[in-house]
């Protein structure tokens, strides 16, 4: 896999994030995050559960406003969400309950790309095929299994053919085979379209395998621990792959020192 273009598409400079509830404000979730994502790269985010991965990717998506600092996409400050940054959410309720699976995608294509219905159906079917949910195309979302919902949401995001794909643990509910299959599909699409991918994952190996860069967040209040360049570690058997995996793992373990009470199981195996 080639190197991405050397041109930043997403930039965060000294960004702090917090949640607002009426007039009250939560403690700071993310502090002083500075990073830049190159056009066409695959940028991974990992970190302990509850540290702020979702919060961060939502800020890039335009769903949260930074408390301090600035988020820019293509050099323009992010003001609101848009279909140029297709988002796959972490939870299972992201399909419209009142449309069939196919229609969910067709609708998204019609409103964002103004495709004629016929063409939208073709494209939607293609992507449903790709994520292997074509058999459930005419079902309503509440009849789908958790993994099928996630795959359908992924298909919708892919079908939008955006500049940037923002994905919050898109493979979280999938079995190993399906997950692996979709990782490969994602790579294929990326190679074909050069889309920029920002992906939150809880799997170190997924991060190293897919990513050019891996952002490691510390536990809360989250800061950038390190941004690891993994663009050379695409071969699973290479020493670089193993080295990166172990490095990331040590970064994370350091964060969770107090959690480890018993034997430490090699993480690369049991997960």
């Amino acid at each position, binding site marked *: 896999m080639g190197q991405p273009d050397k041109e930043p598409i997403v930039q965060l400079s000294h960004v702090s994030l917090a949640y607002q509830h009426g007039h009250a404000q939560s403690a700071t979730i993310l502090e002083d995050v500075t990073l830049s994502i190159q056009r066409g790269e695959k940028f991974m985010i990992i970190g302990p559960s509850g540290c702020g991965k979702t919060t961060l990717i939502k800020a890039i*998506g335009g769903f949260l406003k930074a408390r301090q600092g600035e988020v820019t996409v293509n050099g323009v400050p992010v003001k609101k969400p848009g279909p140029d940054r*297709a*988002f796959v959410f972490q939870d299972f309720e992201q399909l419209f*309950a*009142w449309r069939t699976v196919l229609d969910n995608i067709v609708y998204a294509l019609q*409103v964002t790309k103004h495709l004629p219905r016929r063409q939208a159906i073709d494209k939607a079917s293609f992507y449903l095929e790709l994520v292997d949910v074509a058999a459930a195309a005419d079902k309503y979302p509440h009849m789908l299994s958790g993994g099928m919902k996630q795959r359908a949401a992924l298909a919708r995001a892919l079908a939008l053919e955006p500049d940037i794909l923002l994905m919050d643990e898109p493979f979280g509910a999938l079995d190993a085979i399906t997950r692996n299959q979709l990782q490969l599909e994602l790579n294929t699409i990326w190679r074909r379209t050069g889309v920029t991918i920002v992906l939150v994952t809880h799997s170190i190996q997924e991060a190293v395998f897919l990513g050019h860069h891996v952002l490691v967040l510390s536990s809360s209040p989250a800061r950038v621990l390190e941004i690891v360049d993994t663009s050379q570690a695409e071969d699973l058997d290479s020493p670089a792959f193993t080295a990166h995996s172990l490095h990331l793992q040590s970064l994370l373990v350091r964060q969770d020192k107090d959690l480890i009470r018993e034997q430490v199981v090699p993480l690369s195996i049991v997960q």
Partner: protein
Amino acid sequence: MSVPLFRTAEKRTFTFPGWLRYILIGAIFLIAWQLYVSLSGVSQLLIASPLATLQALIADFANGQLPSAILVSLQNLAIGMGIGIVTGLILASLSTFSRFGRDLLTVLTAVFSPLPGIAILPLTMLWFGLSSSAIIFVVVFGSVWPISANTDTGFRTIGTTTRMVALNLGLTRLQTVRDIFLPAALPHILSGLRLAWAFGWRTVVGAEIVFGVAGSNGGLGWYINNARYFLNPPAIFAGLVVISLLGVLLDTLFQFIEQQTIVKWGMKQAQ
């Protein structure tokens, strides 16, 4: 059979079809009524028996009095509710998208919804004349608040993820309301419509009774009031029965709509 056990599934071994059960309950009700009238010794000037009511129904259907009264009331109701629905939906939409709209809806609902239509009839007459417009106006006034209040609640209880997907697609406000908010809030909206219809009816009939604007074409309220004036309890009850029957009819329609929408979409448990 694999049935979700969410409700007393063990007992569901055999059940009558819905309509039969309703008719059974209705029949028990009628018998109780007949027995009360026959056995309690209550003055027949005050309460009519089901049989006498049936006779009055048949007679006044045959001579055209009831059909024309029904038509007049239904017409006033339909026009009034049509306007009420559109206005209510618009108010709720404005309330969702602008702070001024929200303040306006809050103030309007608070100030006007407790005002009885009867109390504003004199004013209405001043503005609309001694015509059915006055009655239509109070019907609008009676139905707009349940619709806008329920719709507003519906809009505001839409899940965060659904909202975020809409934002992500970059929908216009019109699209958001039409394609996302209305279907997502449909359970609330339908329950608002159900009430609006019931209260619209009350207003039509009540206004005709109290205020008695008739001309040559009095509605059902006028019919009932006349029957009262001339101490004709069977006709009073015939009028009430017609109102109820229309209610049952509309309820069936609502159930059908629910079945075809929110139940099918898994947003509401089946009846």
